[in-house]
């Protein structure tokens, strides 16, 4: 409820302003939406929370069996599971954001047609919901550390940084997708493709040292590689190669462009959906 004068008009201009302050004004809505979804997904359903743990633990078992024990990937002396688990977590959260935030507008079309609020709230809060899963995965990870007797260091305190970059990277694509699905419903089909094949070109299961030297620059361009490497820096005690951070340059460009595109189509959403 804006309490003073509101002007509604179509100025016909092709320029849009981001008005990120509006999103900030609606932060309590983001909070309530996030808590609502977490409650509905995990807490109120009987097996919701257990399911999250089962998923994380199963993933740990499977990758340890195939890549750690059977294929014996070389991870520089760090136990394979300790090395690979944060990477898998990052990828899991990334695809969670693609799926949920990318689909945010279409699946919330009912309220979009009935009430005004900045639509950017939707993909954003959907990404926040996934933080609950991240928490579950981290708990599982800490249990693994205890099992292996692997020490954690002060670098754990830097964990919010890779989580933040994980969200930003996911949203940089999801915001585009959510805006595109308004007009092109099949844009959403890109998501499973990205999630399924992206995992092979990103060092999720393997260290980048396994890749021939001449392809390293390609890996450094991949922002998810950077996110994963930062997680490993914080959690697994891997030393950080700064070149990984180059990958965030395209993320920032994609994100800013995506925000503008989103704002541009925002006003037409209620008419098109």
């Amino acid at each position, binding site marked *: 409820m804006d309490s003073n004068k509101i002007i509604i*008009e179509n100025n016909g201009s092709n320029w849009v302003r981001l008005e990120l302050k509006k999103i900030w004004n609606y932060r309590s809505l983001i909070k309530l939406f996030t808590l609502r979804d977490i409650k509905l997904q995990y807490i109120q359903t009987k097996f919701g929370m257990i399911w999250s743990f089962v998923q994380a633990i199963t993933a740990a078992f499977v990758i340890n069996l195939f890549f750690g024990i059977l294929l014996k990937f070389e991870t520089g002396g760090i136990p394979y599971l300790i090395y690979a688990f944060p990477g898998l977590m990052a990828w899991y959260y990334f695809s969670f954001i693609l799926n949920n935030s990318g689909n945010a507008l279409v699946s919330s079309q009912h309220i979009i047609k009935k009430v005004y609020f900045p639509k950017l709230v939707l993909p954003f809060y959907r990404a926040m919901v996934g933080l609950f899963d991240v928490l579950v995965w981290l708990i599982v990870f800490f249990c693994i550390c205890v099992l292996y007797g692997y020490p954690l260091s002060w670098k754990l305190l830097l964990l919010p940084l890779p989580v933040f970059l994980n969200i930003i990277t996911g949203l940089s694509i999801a915001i585009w997708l959510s805006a595109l699905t308004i007009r092109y419903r099949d844009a959403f089909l890109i998501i499973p493709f990205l999630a399924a094949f992206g995992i092979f070109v990103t060092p999720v299961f393997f260290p980048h040292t396994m890749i021939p030297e001449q392809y390293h620059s390609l890996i450094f361009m991949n922002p998810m590689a950077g996110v994963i490497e930062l997680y490993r820096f914080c959690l697994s005690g891997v030393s950080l190669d700064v070149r990984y951070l180059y990958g965030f340059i395209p993320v920032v460009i994609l994100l800013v462009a995506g925000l503008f595109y989103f704002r541009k189509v925002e006003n037409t959403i209620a008419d098109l959906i």
Partner: protein
Amino acid sequence: MHSEIAIKVSNLSKKYSISGSSEPISLGEGLRNFFGKNKTDTKTIYALDNVSFEVRKGQVLGIIGRNGAGKSTLLKILSRVTVPSSGRIEINGSIASVLEIGMGFHPELSGRENVYLSGTMLGIDTRKIDERFNDIVEFAGVQKFINTPVKHYSSGMYLRLAFSVVTNIDADILLFDEVLSVGDLSFQMKCLQKIKSLHNELKTIIIVSHNLNEIAAICQHVIFLEHGQLVEQGSHNLIKKYFEDSIQPSGNNDITGDRVPEKINILEKDFSSEHLQPGDQTIRIKKVYIVNESNKNDTDFFTNQSFRVCVEFEKFTDTDFFDISIIISNMQQFILSAQTITSNINIEEKTEKGDYIASVLFDEDFFNETILNIGYSVTRNNKDVVCYDTHLLRMKINLFIGNHQKQYYTNIQKFLGPLRPKQQWIYERRK
């Protein structure tokens, strides 16, 4: 801008392109369009066409018009769900809109959580909701169940709570779209009362409704939209005009399913073939019809004429007796009169079988100018309903204006309402 004005709408237009690029399409199609192939023709329609009006602070404005006239589009623009194609709106004060009652409510969440969620969706900050929370719950009357998921609420509780959130948050301007047509009578009464009390608190209220009685009850000012254009604005008389227009056959049914009957008068229903005749082995209805008593051959009816509704039937037993009722309702399905034979004649002795006609006379100046649905029902031995149809016939009664009245005739002399019995007035000085 004048401070007394709550909403000022100037030259507002909203156009939609249909059968063209604004429909969701596939990405491939989009690319083909982009590269200039496969251009589809777009047809533009104006949902709103150059609409201007003002709402003063503290006014209750009703928006009326047929389906597809642009009422909801206007409300959507005012509540910022969609943007206008051109034009400008200035709104002074905070605005809360209810395009759908219970919007944002989630069945699995408790009443308390839903109050906060829907309040926040309306843009109210948490502190304000904290402040008003008790009022909201009290008005809804759900104190005991506020921590229960709303899926366990009765639909009345649910609606009351949803309505309560919107009306108790101190918005300066409230927009309602058909919300009062939901819920049972007691809920509607409560809503009307609340809207009246909001009006007394000088809130500005805009209501879109199909229920003209409701609009008449609460709005001092009405705007009438047709094909996206503001045709007229004014007070109650406009409502009556709209009502007449809406049942006039216009031959213009291309806009989304208007409920305009092609032909108003259906004066006779002859069940010629036996298997179509309503009834059972004891009685069969053969024909139901209306006769103009004042002029037998006239099929136009005027308020100064009496008419008779007749039911022809055949009795097959000698032991049963049948009570025939004539049921008259208006276009809003509200029953105005239900006349039964037994209230007038003792028919319990007249039980021999054969063909009968039962008819009832409606005097002149009984009904006002209006459109009536006429139906019947048949009850056997005061217990079993054999058959009924409340919408069998339809007739229009036109206002009779005598020659001597014509020169004095104004809108004000029209009676409002469906009845026009001649009642005696007394006008004198107090002693």
